[in-house]
């Protein structure tokens, strides 16, 4: 299923329910997230992975995205 279908369905539902029903989505979101991460862990656990390599990749990607954002913002954003 395309990811946009549940996303757009959710946006439409949220828009229609706005000002009509007071719903807190924090708890359902947390439960869905924890289950999703658990199942993601299962999928990853079944694949042979090098933990050190994953950690290194994560740090490189995090650092580069932060530095890239700062570079562009310092270059292009003026008050």
């Amino acid at each position, binding site marked *: 299923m395309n990811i946009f279908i549940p996303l757009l369905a959710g946006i439409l539902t*949220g828009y229609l329910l706005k000002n009509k029903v007071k719903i807190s989505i924090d708890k359902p979101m947390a439960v869905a997230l924890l289950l999703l991460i*658990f199942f*993601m*862990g299962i999928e990853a656990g*079944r694949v042979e992975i090098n933990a050190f390599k994953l950690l290194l990749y994560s740090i490189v*990607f*995090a650092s*580069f995205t*932060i530095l890239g954002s700062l570079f562009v*913002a310092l270059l292009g954003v003026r008050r």
Partner: protein
Amino acid sequence: MSLLYLVLVSLVLGMLVGKTTSFDFGNFYELMLYLLIFIIGVDIGKSKGLREELRKLGKMALLLPVATIIGSLIGGFLASMLLGVSLKWGLGIAAGFGWYSLTGPLLAAYSPVYGVVGFLANLTREILTIIFYPVAIKRIPKEVGIVMGGATTMDTTLPIIAKFGGTEITLLAFVHGFILTAIAPFLIPLILQFF
């Protein structure tokens, strides 16, 4: 226990179960992914007042998220070149803007390994922002420093920004995070489908 700890426990527990058992969970993973995306959609749909807030903050409110998007994608591009990772994964990871709980599962639908990298890289972005934002704003304008946190500036890194950057930039940080939070669920699948 904070949600961050629970998330890490879930990930480690899942990896242990995956490593030690061969139990078939069917398509539970996909169902949970679609449920989470739907809930995120509801959250975006019911939010209000953004247009008014944007008007108050002026052009800075739009320029900062644009800088974050362009800069993150450039960073992801360079990181993928350095590590020899396909551009599809590099840009997909970068387009999470720190939203690890979205990026990890979305990428994992295509590749479990890059799902974990996407998760950890974006979690690391959040952690690095918490550690280095207070240090960075000693040398750069505190408004510009907001871009470090990406989408997380509307929730998890907002208290740090408010405490060290001052309450006058809190709204700017929130709007920055809000715009990126609205864009990431569209941008990641687009990158994964077109690259």
